């Protein structure tokens, strides 16, 4: 337990003690001096200095997470009299692309909100929208270690991730067994082999929610990650230098892979995460054997089954290596969710953030199966075997690359995703993706 949560607990005890004392005073038989005095002192002690309302926007709209955040808000209110927490969950892309940018630009931002690392946090800091948290909650920041790095700009911390995970294949163990695939693929050749075997038993080998652009784009990110060396990736992110041939190779390999027709019919119109017809839904009801998706997918798939439980057959394996490419075979692509405070938020905002990041809340978060907590002490509370596998994959990863669209920021990210989607539709070229990225970077 860190210092701040101790402080909250102590504060809770003090408040409880005072109210007990005043109760005792009221019930005391002597009506003379003691009664009014204690009453007065308890009133001044428990009376809030000022009423503060903290608005909190997050991306939890389904699964167990909304309940966790609701409880956090209630507990924080209970421990801090006079502080009111108004928490609201919004659909992730809506929140990221529309609600938060507009709220920040209009000067009427929520106090605590989801902060995305990479390009977006850099822009927000440059505009002075975010509060530097280093002085307010140093212990909380220290508690998550290097995971906080993507939320730092010029050495200062503007957000703290409460979850971080990596992407991999979520797959149906039963279907793999039926198709005679004994071990999850570790190389691209083995993945191609698995696709062939799954087709033989009339199952869609891989579901992809290409109707939304990002799930398709993640395929290219993975190919780029495994084609390009970590140094090339780092240079790409820092200087928007995409001249290395590996960026084109990634697209070429992906074209070859798409040509084997591993995806479901009409994948260009398939949504990713909502409804039975989505790629997650296809995995949930056994129509598809695999889906490449982030660490949150177990919860999404669970929400799409008839009994709303994470299915028994669900397994996870990391993206396979590409033989003979410069990319690190153990590199992983991932991202996390973090919260930050707006520049003019009340100081209680940082306290709430510290409470969210306390080991106790992190353990609740982990136990709910919503994701992988960032505080190491809380990881023992992970009950979900799938999340345990992702957490293990994360700890084994030699190099973790942030989602490329997040890393490069909205403008370059959007241009990149448009190019990738064209490639999926069969009317783009690997070179075109790189050219779009360079052109977009030139407009910055």
């Amino acid at each position, binding site marked *: 337990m860190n210092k701040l949560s101790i402080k909250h607990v102590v504060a809770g005890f003090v408040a409880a003690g005072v109210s007990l004392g005043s109760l005792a005073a009221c019930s005391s038989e002597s009506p003379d001096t003691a009664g009014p005095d204690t009453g007065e002192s308890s009133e001044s002690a428990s009376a809030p200095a000022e009423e503060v309302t903290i608005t909190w926007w997050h991306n939890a709209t389904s699964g167990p997470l909304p309940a966790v955040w609701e409880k956090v808000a209630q507990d924080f209110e209970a421990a801090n009299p006079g502080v009111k927490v108004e928490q609201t969950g919004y659909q992730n892309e809506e929140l990221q*692309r*529309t609600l938060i*940018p*507009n709220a*920040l*630009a209009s000067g009427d931002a929520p106090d605590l909100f989801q902060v995305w690392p990479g390009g977006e946090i850099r*822009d*927000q800091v440059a*505009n002075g*929208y975010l509060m530097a948290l280093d002085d307010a909650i140093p212990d909380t920041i220290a508690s998550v270690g290097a995971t906080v790095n993507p939320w730092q700009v010029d050495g200062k911390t503007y957000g703290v991730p409460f979850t971080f995970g990596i992407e991999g294949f979520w797959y149906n163990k039963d279907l793999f067994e039926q198709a005679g695939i004994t071990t999850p693929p570790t190389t691209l050749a083995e993945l191609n082999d698995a696709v062939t075997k799954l087709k033989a038993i009339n199952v869609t080998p891989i579901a992809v929610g*290409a*109707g*939304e*652009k990002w799930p*398709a784009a993640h395929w290219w990110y993975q190919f780029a990650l495994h084609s390009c060396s970590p140094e090339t990736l780092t240079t790409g992110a820092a200087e928007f230098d995409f001249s290395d041939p590996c960026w084109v190779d990634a697209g070429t390999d992906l074209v070859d892979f798409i040509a084997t027709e591993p995806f479901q*019919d*009409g*994948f*260009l*119109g*398939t*949504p990713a995460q909502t409804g039975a*017809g989505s790629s997650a839904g296809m995995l949930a009801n056994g129509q598809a054997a695999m889906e490449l998706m982030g660490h949150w997918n177990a919860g999404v798939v669970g929400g799409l089954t008839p009994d709303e439980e994470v299915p028994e057959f669900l397994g996870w394996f990391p993206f396979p290596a590409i033989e003979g490419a410069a990319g690190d075979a153990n590199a992983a692509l991932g991202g996390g969710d973090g919260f930050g405070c707006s520049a003019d938020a009340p100081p209680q905002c940082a306290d709430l953030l510290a409470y969210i990041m306390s080991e106790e809340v992190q353990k609740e978060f982990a136990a709910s199966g919503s994701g992988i907590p960032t505080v190491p002490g809380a990881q023992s509370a992970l009950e979900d075997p799938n999340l345990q596998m992702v957490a293990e994959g994360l700890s084994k990863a030699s190099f973790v690359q942030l989602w490329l669209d997040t890393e490069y*920021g*909205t*403008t370059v990210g*959007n*241009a990149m995703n*448009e190019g990738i*989607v*064209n490639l*999926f*539709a069969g*009317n783009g070229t690997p070179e075109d993706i790189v050219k779009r990225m360079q052109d977009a970077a030139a*407009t*910055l």
Partner: protein
Amino acid sequence: MHGKARTRLEIVLFVAPALILFIGFVIVPVVLAAVYSFFNLPAGFRWEMLNPERFVGWNNYTRAFSTPEFRKAIANTFFILFASLLVQGPLAVGIALLLNRRMRGRGILRLLIFVPYVLAEVIAGLTWKLLLQPNGGVNAIVDALGLGFLHRNWLADPKLALYTIFFILTWKYIGFAILLMLAGLQGVPHELGEAAAIDGASWWQTQRYVTLPLLAPTIRIWAFLSIIGSLQVFDMVWVTVAPTLRQMSTETMATYMVQQGQFAGQPGYGSAIAVILFFISLTIALGYQRLALRRDLAGSVTRGVR
């Protein structure tokens, strides 16, 4: 108070609220968009960023016209515009002529045809989106009727999606066109038709040489509304088609503007698109008014046109 001053005061009092709203919410945003369009701005920009460093002149405009996606968006918008005129117009006139005859259940038919127009565009779009899923209602009906060869991925086939969207738009707006035509037909005197019949004109000839010419003002007004509506198509495309498919084949000028200005984080470029859209709409609207509507609107906007 003197009469003249009083009249002026009254004018000011009554006009001011509307004028302030109009200037504040129409004129100022249009001017601001024009200003933004000359700058390269990040998402969530602030006023101070409109500085010489970020001034890019006509770059956003040249970029727009040299971008294949935007040219495609213009082409798609004009496809919807012309297809609406050529398909919905004749269809609406035909159905209105039929519904204008005495027959059993005419009231119910008129009501049913108008129902889609009453639905909110987003609701209509989402409903069709569900019906047109690969294993949705439309394909199920097609299969059940033994027309399996018509089984299509209506919204996820890049070659088909724009036509599907056009079908949904027609389904939604034909009711409005029919209603307008029916109203126009009420203004066509029966006596003329009877006179023509006495002179030996067939029903077809009566419609062609009597009814249609008298219906022309209504048709011209409907065409004007349809053109304006086509230039603005946004909701139907945005909610019905998945983002990927939209980029592939159904992007309209309005969806492209929102995608680039808002979701690609380039308000300056998005504003340039908005200005282009504004001028295209303005040119077409004014041109149409001068060429086609001047007789109908004589005395109001186009006075002085000879």
